[in-house]
Structure formats: C-alpha cells, structure tokens
C-alpha cells in the first residue's frame, strides 16, 4: 500500500537559513510515525508543511497520491487532525463547541455530531459533564483530550500531533501516552507525532525518524537506532536521554 503522505525533496528556509534541507519522507498508512530530535531540527517544520501552514521553497508534497492545488488546501486540512502543545482550544467556545466547530460549520447533521461527540468522550476518557466548560476551566490534560477530540471529530485520514504532551506533568503525561496508544490502535489511525522525548517515541511509534539540523539522520525502530546508529549523533542523542534513567 502506498504512503498516505509523500514529501519529495522538500525544503524550507527562514531568513535565508535552511529550517529543512531538501528532504524526502513518507508517512505509512495505519502506523504511528514519530519525528524526534533536538529543538530546531526541522520536525515541527515538517508537520507545518504537511498541513500547509507554511509552503515549501522546493520539492513536492503529495497527499493520498495527489498534489494539492492551492484552492483545495482548506479541503485538505479537513482531512487532517492537528493537535498542538497547549491544545490550541478557542477560549471563547466551550469544550463542546470547540469539538463541534467544524462539523457545525460544514453543516453536518447535529444528531450525528452529538453521537460522535459521545463516542469520542468515551474514546478519550473525557467526562461528558465537562463538555459545557470553557478551556480556562479545564486542566492541561483535559484540554489535550478535548483538543484530540476536536482533531478526531471529522475522522481524519491523518493525525498530526506537535508535542501534544509537552506541557503536562509526568503522571498526566503517562496516562495520556497510554490512552493515545490505545486510541491509535483501535482507530488504525495514521499518525505523525513530534516529540523530543525518546521514551515517548519508543512507546508510541512504529517508526522513529531522528532529525538534526534540518536533515533526517536515521529512520527505523528504536532497536535500529540503538543497535546500528547511522552516525555518532544518534548515539549521542540516545545516551543523552538515557543518562537520566541510569541515575
């Protein structure tokens, strides 16, 4: 089966400097791919290119085997769910309104949407009683669950998660990691996750893409990275994270 997303020799510069050198990357259907690497390595840039928050300077991005023309970008975006670190929930809308926003905007039948919302609450372990709350009235973990529901509402073909658990405390984080893994498995969800936490990458990712300074350094399983590092940077990155576990 072909890849859902295919980046071919895609590059992006900011102020003359490469944020992403010409890079090719494919996202396989039904799997969780994790982009990992130090800050500024180009992992978030790759995500933002896929959902077209930014346009590439060179190369092509194909989605489901097709290039996307500029007038179809909003339609493309509706096929993709996007979850960011602080959730990106709109403060003037309740949790319910945040989740239902696009379904209502697109005129989907309200009863179907409501049912979908109930299912999502079960799936993401979010109490229905909290749906009437505004984002400021929710905890960080609750907000991320709502954000996840919003991203999943339209049953997207691709789920993009940009350090979704980065701002959460360790206990909440561990619980959400576990839930995410179950959700992805149950939905057979194609997902692309950005993190800088190797343990999270190893736990959630079928495949890990290690990046550094705008380039892909190595792609493979956590075992591949540990046993056959492509460069000394790979070992350095792994050791830097493991050193804490040793203490």
């Amino acid at each position, binding site marked *: 089966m072909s890849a859902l997303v295919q980046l071919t020799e895609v590059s992006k510069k900011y102020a003359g400097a490469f944020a992403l050198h010409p890079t090719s990357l494919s996202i396989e259907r039904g799997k969780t791919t994790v982009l990992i690497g130090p800050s500024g390595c180009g992992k978030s840039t790759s995500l933002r290119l896929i959902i077209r928050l930014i346009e590439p300077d060179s190369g092509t991005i194909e989605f489901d085997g097709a290039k996307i023309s500029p007038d179809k970008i909003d339609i493309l975006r509706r096929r993709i769910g996007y979850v960011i670190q602080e959730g990106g929930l*709109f403060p003037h809308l309740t949790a319910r309104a945040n989740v239902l*926003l696009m379904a209502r905007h697109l005129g989907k039948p309200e009863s179907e949407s409501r049912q979908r919302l109930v299912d999502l609450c079960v799936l993401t372990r979010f109490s229905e009683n909290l749906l009437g709350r505004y984002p400021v009235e929710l905890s960080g973990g609750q907000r991320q669950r709502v954000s996840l529901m919003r991203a999943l509402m339209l049953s997207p073909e691709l789920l993009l998660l940009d350090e979704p658990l980065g701002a959460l405390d360790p206990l909440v984080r561990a619980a959400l990691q576990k839930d995410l893994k179950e959700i992805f498995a149950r939905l057979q969800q194609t997902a692309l996750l950005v993190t800088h936490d190797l343990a999270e990458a190893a736990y959630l990712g079928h495949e890990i893409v290690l990046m550094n300074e705008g380039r892909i350094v190595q792609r493979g399983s956590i075992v591949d990275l540990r046993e056959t590092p492509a460069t000394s940077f790979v070992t350095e990155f792994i050791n830097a994270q493991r050193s804490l576990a040793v203490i």
Partner: protein
Amino acid sequence: MKRIWNPGIHEFCRRILFFSWFLGFQIFNSSAFPAEKIVIGSKKFTESYVLGEIAKRTLNDAGIPADHRQGMGGTIILWEALRTGQIDAYPEYTGTIAEEILKNRQRSRREPSDVDEEEQVNQSASLEKMREALAKSGVGMTASLGFNNSYALVMRRDKAQGLDLHKISDLRNHPELKIGLTHEFLDRQDGWRPLVARYQLNPRNVIGIDHALGYAALKNGSIDVKDAYSTDAKIAQYDLVTLEDDLQFFPRYDAIFLYRLALPGSTIAALRKLEGTINEQKMIRLNATAERTKDYARAASLYFGDAARSTIAGESFSHKLVRWTSRHLQLAGFSLLLSVIVGVPLGIWASRGGAIGQVILGFTGVVQTIPSLALLALLVPLPFFGISARTAIAALFLYGLLPIVRNTATGLQDIPRSLRESAIALGLEPGARLRKIFLPIASRSILGGIKTSAVINVGTATLAALIGAGGLGEPILSGLNLNDHVTILQGAIPAAVLALLVQGLFDLLDRVLIPKGLRL
C-alpha cells in the same frame, strides 16, 4: 460684529479657512441647500443673538418662514456661510466689513483736527464702495440699524476718577495699569497694536483674556483697563466709564444686516424695515435683558414692544434639557455608529500589518492630533458639510475612529499564533476564521475601543454648539458668553453624567457581547 466671543478660536479658524481656500475648496453655491426657509445666522455674542432673533421675528411677522441659527462662530465662518448660501442673512458691522471682510489695509488714519463734514462725506462714499465690493460676492447690505457699536476702552469709575483719566491719551502717563484685552482685539488691524502706536502708549502689563471673563476681572481689580463694545450691557451694569477716543482711532461700527442678493425682494424689503429702528440706548437695554433673562427671544420681543409674548418664547428648563440631551445623543450616537462601521473593517485591515496597516493607523492617529476646533473649521468650508450637524457628526466620526481602529488591530494582532494557526489548520475559510474565531476573541479589545470612542464623543460633542449644531454645548457656550456659571453647569453637568452613563452602559454591554469564556 468685529468681535467674536472667543477670539482665539476665531483666529485659528480664520487661518485654517484661508489655507483651505488656497486648496480650492470653495466651489460651493447655494444650490445644495434648498431655501424653503430663510436662515438667519448670528455670531457668538449676545448682541448678535438678539439681532438674529429680531430679524427672524420680523420675517415671520411678514409671513416669511425663517429660522435663526444661533452663535455659529466668528466673522469668517458667518461670511463664508453667507457667501456660499448656507445662511441667507446675518447681523454685521460696517467696521468689521472694512477691516476683516474686505481687508482695507491701506485705510489711512485721520488727523484729529479734520473730522466733521469732510469725514461725513468720506463715510458715505466708503459705504457705497463697500456695497459695490460686497455685491461682487452676491451680498447686499442694509443701511444702519441705528446704532454704532464701536470699540471702546473702559475702566472702573472709581479707578478712573482716582487717576483722573478721561481720554485714551491719558493712559500715556500710566504705563503701570494692568490691561486685559480680548485676543481678537490684540490681533486686529484696528486693534491694540495700531492703537498703541497711534497714541504712543507704553503699557507694561498687557494680557489676553476672554471678553466675558474680562468684565469679572475688571470688577474685582485683576485688571484696570479692558476693551469693550459701546453697547455692552455690562458698561452700565458695572458702572464703568468709557475713555474718550480723543485721537479718533476707532472706525465706525454701524450695525447692519448682510443678506444674499439672490433673496426674494419681499424678504429684503422686510429686513430693510429694521433700518434706523434701534438706537444705542435701545440696544444696550436689549442686551441687558438678554443677559439677565438668558433668553434671547424674550429680549427680541422687547424690541417689538410685547414683553408679554416672552412666555411663549421662553422654554422650560426641563424641555430645553431634553432637547439638548437628545440632540447631544443623536450627534454622539450617530457618529459612533459610523466610527464602528468604518473603524472595525479598517482595524481588521490594519491588523494585517504592512504598509497599508501603517498608513491606516498613521492617518487615524494624525486625525486625533488635530484640535477639534480646527477640524470643525476645516470641514465647514467643504461642500455638503458647512454649518450643520453633518459637520459635527463628521468631525466626531473622525475622532471616534482611532480608538476603534487601534483596538481592533491590536486585539487581532494579540491573538496567540497557536490559536491563529489552529483556526487555519481546522480548514476554516478566511472569512469564517475572522467571524467565528478571531473577532470573538478580540471582542474585549474592540469593545474597549468603542467604549473609549463613545466617551470621547459624548465629551467632544459639546463643541458641536460652536457651529450651531446644538447639543449640551449650547448652554455651556452661552454660559461662557454671559459669564454665567449656572448656565454653564446646565450643560456641563448633564454632559458629564451622560459620559458616565455611557461608560456604565458599555460595562453592561461587555457582559452581553464578550463571550463568557473570555471573562472567566
């Protein structure tokens, strides 16, 4: 008259008006203002108000419908309004026509010896010339209404007697006297500087002071000498003496009506019936009545000999208050509405930054720095605006723009990038993003801007009275004119209360319009 109630305004307006003429704004004629009703204008001081009322009554009595726009401003504003047909007639003085309107700069000063008959001949000859010159602007002039309201220098009787002062020349020996003059007199061609030169005075203490306030200053001894108009009611009221103009410095200021030559003959004939019917004593009495009763219509009715009718003309305070306040709210409300309709889209545009955003914010910022009086004066000579509520609304609208534009722009710009991108990433079209996400999130800031504009407008709308557009500025201005604190407060207190109410109303509106999620 040669004078205006607030000379500082006059001077400012005049300069700006001349400037705008240079820019070629004056292409306007009467056609835009259909003349179903004859419109009488008046300047911003008691006598002009009273004469305006008298003219209105006279025309009405002759079966000609007429309105009186009170206290529209100074010489240049009235003259322009007349010339362009926004008003049909207004009371003026021959000296002012010569000095200010026709600008006879070469007017030679006479020697004190050769006054008498020769002078009489010159006088009538120059009146004919004046008529000819006015006719070129389509303006006609009645004969004298019967009194000469000349400039004069006045002092308290006890002070003058103590120093044995009778003539202006006597001031030469008393350079220590404190002299308080209206700003217009200080600045006029026939005013203070030439007078000092002619009389070879060497005064050491000269200050500029408002006309009405100057009388209070004279009374309590803050100043010793002030300029006055020979029909001022205050001269008798405060028992002041007029220093004799022994060098014949001041030109004659015969009161007349200027009118548009295009008026129907019957209207002109009715106005001319006023010729020679008011002597100086009568005018002083009418002025005194107006100042005492604060009721110009009543003073005017004295002219017609029927003080009884004054009860009809007199309006109860509560009725006036309602009229002022509702007019005030109309001006402020309508202009605010325009500011919102225009300001919010401009703010959205400006929020996108770039050169256009800079231009928008720059323009609205510059508008804000223009003094309100100057803005009014700039708008008055423009076609469509003129002396009307439209001008006041336009000025208030421009003032209301900046807070709304700026708050809209910053409110939108302050939305965190993460929220902006979330809205985009969801696949909302640009219009829907703005409507459903960005504007609601920025609503607190936008509403804050509207609130600021509303409060500013309610305050600034008092200036609308300067161009006869009414509102709570009306009692404030006539109170300043009459130096009457009670009248001032009749306008100032309601205006302040109104501003507070508006503030409170918007605080309530906040609760309705700002989404709950943003208020937690």
